[in-house]
């Protein structure tokens, strides 16, 4: 029961996080590729509730950032110019969920751009880029995991159900894929595909490459489940009644794999998000100007950015809650799977 409750808890956490990313248009104040060349490398703006005289305000406000005299990249707060943050403000148009046209944003301001995480070299708002980038990275992770699970399910069920030489060949290939260090494999696959492509094509390329790398582990797990399931009494009975292979697989055997697949999905998605980040970080993934979590961080490869503009690192920390959510979900799913197994086997055969 406890694992069920933690499962629900993590599901709610992940749901909330993903809602923010899916509705990036609403939560992000600006367009992710809108440039503001006059304000490159703006440091993160602090929101205040208390002004200099010590009065507390109900609405948060920020101070306009101005270039310090005699410098070209040092900003300071201009305390004479407080800017009130407005909620549900109209701004740049976007399509919520891809089809609902809207102009409302969660927050914004009339006088100046409010950049919670600062801006990059082109003055693009990092906070907006983080949210929009999440759409790309998470979708790549989820689609990639879907790809992997599909291949794994197919290979695993063929190997487990039909056995014989198919089993031998497929499992040998799976061992091959398991043996390679995954990042090298990812690199090798990516190396042989074209490099300069449009963002959309690059996205699908990455999904396929990432999804094609990790199928071996789920395939072996599925094979194990199928092997044990096909000897169960009800499956034998169904076969005795003349059920075809396709029917048996679809109706009786593959449903048994659902728990394994779900757990694998929760483990794979963050891994694949990380894989996308790595590829994009190294310039092999989603090309600019489209934001993704990987190429948000690729700025940090320049030494000058590393030295002077530390806030470009902040997006990396924003990913931690997502990873935490998926980790929690995976472990609660695993616990549930074990409890389920124990329940089914009965306490007598716990060895």
């Amino acid at each position, binding site marked *: 029961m406890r694992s069920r409750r933690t499962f629900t808890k993590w599901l709610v956490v992940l749901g909330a996080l993903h809602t923010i990313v899916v509705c990036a248009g609403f939560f992000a104040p600006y367009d992710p590729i809108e440039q503001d060349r006059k304000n490159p490398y703006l440091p993160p703006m602090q929101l205040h509730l208390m002004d200099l005289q010590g009065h507390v305000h109900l609405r948060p406000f920020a101070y306009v950032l101005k270039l310090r005299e005699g410098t070209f990249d040092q900003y300071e707060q201009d305390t004479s110019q407080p800017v009130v943050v407005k909620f549900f403000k109209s701004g740049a148009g976007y399509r919520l969920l891809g089809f609902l046209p809207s102009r409302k944003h969660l927050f914004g301001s009339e006088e100046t751009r409010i950049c919670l995480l600062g801006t990059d070299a082109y003055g693009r708002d990092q906070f907006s880029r983080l949210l929009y980038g999440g759409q790309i990275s998470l979708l790549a992770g989820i689609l990639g995991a879907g790809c992997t699970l599909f291949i794994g399910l197919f290979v695993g069920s063929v190997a487990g159900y039909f056995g014989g030489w198919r089993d031998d060949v497929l499992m*040998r*290939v799976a*061992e*091959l894929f398991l*043996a*390679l*260090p*995954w*990042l*090298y*494999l990812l*690199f*090798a*696959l*990516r*190396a*042989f*595909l*074209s*490099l300069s492509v449009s963002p959309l094509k690059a996205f699908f390329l990455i999904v396929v490459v990432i999804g094609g790398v990790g199928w071996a582990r789920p395939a072996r797990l599925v094979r194990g489940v199928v092997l044990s399931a096909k000897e169960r009494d009800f499956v034998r009975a169904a076969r005795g009644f003349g059920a075809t292979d396709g029917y048996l697989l679809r109706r009786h055997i593959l449903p048994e794999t659902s728990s394994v697949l779900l757990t694998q999905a929760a483990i794979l998605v*963050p891994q694949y998000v*990380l894989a996308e*980040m*790595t590829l994009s*970080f*190294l*310039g*092999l993934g989603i090309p600019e100007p489209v934001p993704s979590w*990987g190429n948000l*961080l690729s700025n*940090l*490869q320049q*030494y000058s950015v*590393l*030295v002077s503009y*530390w806030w470009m*690192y902040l997006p*990396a*920390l924003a*990913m*931690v809650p997502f*990873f*935490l959510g998926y*980790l929690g979900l995976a472990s609660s799913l695993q616990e549930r799977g074990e409890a389920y197994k124990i329940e089914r086997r009965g306490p007598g055969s716990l060895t």
Partner: protein
Amino acid sequence: MRFFLRRLRHALFLLLGVSILAFLFTTLAPGNYFDEMRLNPQIAPETVAALRAQYQLDRPLPLRYASWMNSVVHGRMGFSFAYNTPVAPLLFARARYTLLLTVTATLIAWGIALPLGVWSAERFGRWPDRLLSWGTAALLVIPDLALALGLLVLAVRTGRFPTGGMTSLEFERLSLGGKLCDLAWHMTLPVVALVLSALPLLLRHVRAAVVGVLDAPFMLAARGHGIPRRTLLYRYALRAAANPLISLFGFSIGALLSGSLLVEVVMSWPGLGPLLLESILSRDLYVVIGGVLLSTFFLVCGNFLADIFLYWADPRIRTESGAR
């Protein structure tokens, strides 16, 4: 002996399979190193065709594979278009540094994980153990990339650590001790990044394995005989828990090799990582294949080492292979 022969055959098969796999991918590749030249109006199409013929890119795949295999046997591992030399010396020069990083990180990570895991397993469920579990969970959710970059940002902000490269500028003029210190100082950050990314998983497995053994009746019996705690934990419990841990050792080498690829690029360590990235960007085919193959070779070596350990540590394996 038969056990080792079987593992060796398996390893060779694996390497062969990987090389075939890598070559199969090359057929899928649109474009090669000489494609950019074709766009250049100053280079005649005949020249490009001649170059392609010289490097045998116009021959069918099985023939190319055969000639590449031939050059592997002769210790050249194909030809790099960008560097205009055989691949092997290029790779070996870089691989040394990758190995230096990976081996150090492996030793340190296991050196921390074993005692800490046993320590935590002994206090299973009490607050030091729970604190440690929280620590490992926290490390586990920080992505490798964020960890490496964070360390780098920290290094730059404090100015205490070098932010790239392997040696200082005046390295050549230092004494031997100075050289070693300098190297260690430059290695610190990459190794810390690798260890931190590998540690949580190792720690969890060590703890779980030892906890499983501590409950066993023979441990109770040993305790009843008055065997000291330390001997009990490290000689009896750890050895009984060794089997899954040694398999994990092979796996951890693979993970560390992958991790090192990323860390090397982030911290500009002159290992295989930057070379591989560069050759991917310039479509230097044989360097990529060579790099993948070399990393697989390291991994296979690591697994083989793990098998030897296992043979030594687990009497069950010995009897099993003797019976067959």
